[in-house]
């Protein structure tokens, strides 16, 4: 936009940017508060001097939460589910997306409709649970991955991406005698790394945040991922939530610092990975959103 130097315009800019700065801060302040609070002592928090920066540093809270197996175990489960789940989802999604991106495929629009329809209507919690049960997946780690393997939205994004690759590439490879598999693995995939990276990240975040499938399908507390443990400690231990099943490891309500430490642990991988990948996320959401 060409510079507009009028006073009104400048005032607008100042007001706008100030507001935006406040909004940005509001978005991240709670995180800062929690992260900082996890690194201090209970006494410090209670003294009311603390808001954002601890005057007294301490690892008490972390020592406490790692003193038993619970948090370790849950982290391990979450890491495993995230890595294997993302790989599995990407495999299924990419294959299907590539197949659906080829315009001369018979039945293509029918299958696409089938996919899109699931975004508008579903069988619901109980019928899905019964299917998972019928497949003997209840109380298995697979229940955290298989029933949610493909996200229709991600599928559409990938398909659109593959569709927009230059057609000449596929054709010249075919003339050279390459099979569809060859084209996919040797040409299309290397060209699609940005989309693959982005969608992988979307899946990874979803898997790391797994909560609902865990409480639906897992009865064995040892298999719970970190988000479920987080809920046990912060939400349930407060004695406030609807059902209080499964409170075994922590008997008295945990201190604020401990709750904060568990929150940090449950959030850490995302916060670490995020700054490097933020621009990929935003671009990826764009890739398919408008056309999809």
């Amino acid at each position: 936009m060409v510079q507009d130097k009028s006073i009104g315009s400048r005032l607008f800019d100042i007001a706008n940017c100030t507001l935006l700065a406040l909004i940005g801060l509001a978005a991240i302040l709670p995180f800062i508060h929690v992260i900082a609070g996890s690194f201090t002592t209970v006494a410090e928090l209670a003294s009311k001097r603390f808001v954002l920066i601890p005057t007294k540093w301490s690892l008490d809270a972390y020592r406490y939460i790692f003193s038993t197996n619970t948090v370790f175990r849950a982290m391990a489960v979450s890491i495993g589910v995230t890595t294997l789940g993302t790989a599995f989802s990407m495999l299924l999604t990419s294959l299907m997306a590539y197949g659906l991106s080829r315009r001369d495929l018979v039945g293509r629009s029918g299958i696409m409709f089938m996919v899109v329809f699931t975004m508008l209507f579903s069988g619901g919690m109980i019928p899905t649970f019964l299917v998972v049960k019928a497949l003997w997946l209840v109380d298995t780690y697979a229940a955290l991955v298989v029933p949610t393997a493909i996200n229709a939205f991600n599928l559409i994004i990938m398909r659109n991406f593959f569709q927009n690759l230059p057609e000449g590439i596929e054709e010249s490879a075919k003339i050279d005698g390459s099979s569809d598999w060859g084209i996919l693995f040797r040409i299309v995939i290397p060209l699609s790394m940005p989309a693959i990276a982005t969608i992988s990240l979307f899946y990874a975040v979803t898997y790391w945040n797994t909560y609902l499938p865990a409480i639906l399908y897992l009865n064995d507390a040892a298999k719970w991922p970190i988000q479920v443990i987080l809920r046990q400690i912060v939400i349930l231990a407060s004695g406030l939530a609807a059902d209080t099943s499964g409170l075994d490891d922590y008997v008295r309500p945990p201190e604020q610092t401990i709750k904060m430490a568990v929150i940090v642990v449950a959030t850490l991988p995302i916060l670490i990975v995020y700054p490097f990948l933020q621009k990929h996320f935003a671009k990826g959401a764009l890739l398919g959103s408008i056309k999809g």
Partner: protein
Amino acid sequence: MREATAPNTMAAGGKTGSGLMKRIVKNRALYLMILPGFLFFVIFKYVPMGGLVIALQDYQPYQGILNSPWVGLKHFRKLFADPQFFMILRNTLVLFAMNLAFFFPVPIILALMLNEVRNQLFKRTIQTMVYIPHFMSWVIIVSISFVILSMDRGILNELLVMMGFEKINFLMSKEWFRPMYILQIIWREAGWGTIIYLAAMAAIDPGLYEAARMDGAKRLHQIWHITLPSIRNVIVVLLILKLGDVLELGFEHVYLLLNAMNREVAEIFDTYVYTAGLRQGQFSYSTAVGFFKSVVGLILVMAANWLAKKAGEEGIY
């Protein structure tokens, strides 16, 4: 020269028997690629849809679908006669209306604001900050809220006391549930929601702004008369999709906030389905409830889509 003839087959309306079969066979590798995903959708999306029939039965797990007795609309009648039904319906509709009124405009306004920023570094910094909450699970969002809003040393109550006010029991009160719910949604999703609007705004012809400026239009006027109308169809599409989401969205979120104290305003269809179905084992009844909810959502989407088309906008189908 297969390549030269394939397009001709299609152009000639390749639905002739041999042309069709040839295309299917030619693409057999592609069908193989689609197969696993296709099976996924069939097994985990469409079979459960078929499983909705248990809403018309007295489903007993040990007898299975084929052997459970059929009871017709008994569960639906029970649902409408249930005194809790209206409470749940009211809660669901209120939360949805609040979502629409208070949350839906926020990403739009935020995008409008971000769009006006000329300094790219500042813009990207703010975007980075407001995207973060989107990646946090609801457990994390609610947990952080709990820590901050807690009566026992939560920072917000501490600040209230310092300013001379009484402590407020946010987490357990009925009055604060709805505001808390909406604020959490705004915190989590407003930033991420700007992406699609910003993309649409980026496509607007700068010449329009030029012309407006020459005519003496102020910044706000430019936004109102140029930017907003240009993203109108994006807004409409997202509105329609949101309607489809209406009764669907928010189970994890509400479930985490639900407790005995705020149940009267917090219980929605999904949490009721979960409690009645998986906790109390009323499979058929809760499926009926869920079915009702899904159907209403679908009807709303179709109605909204039809309305949008009537008004001249593109729908989603």
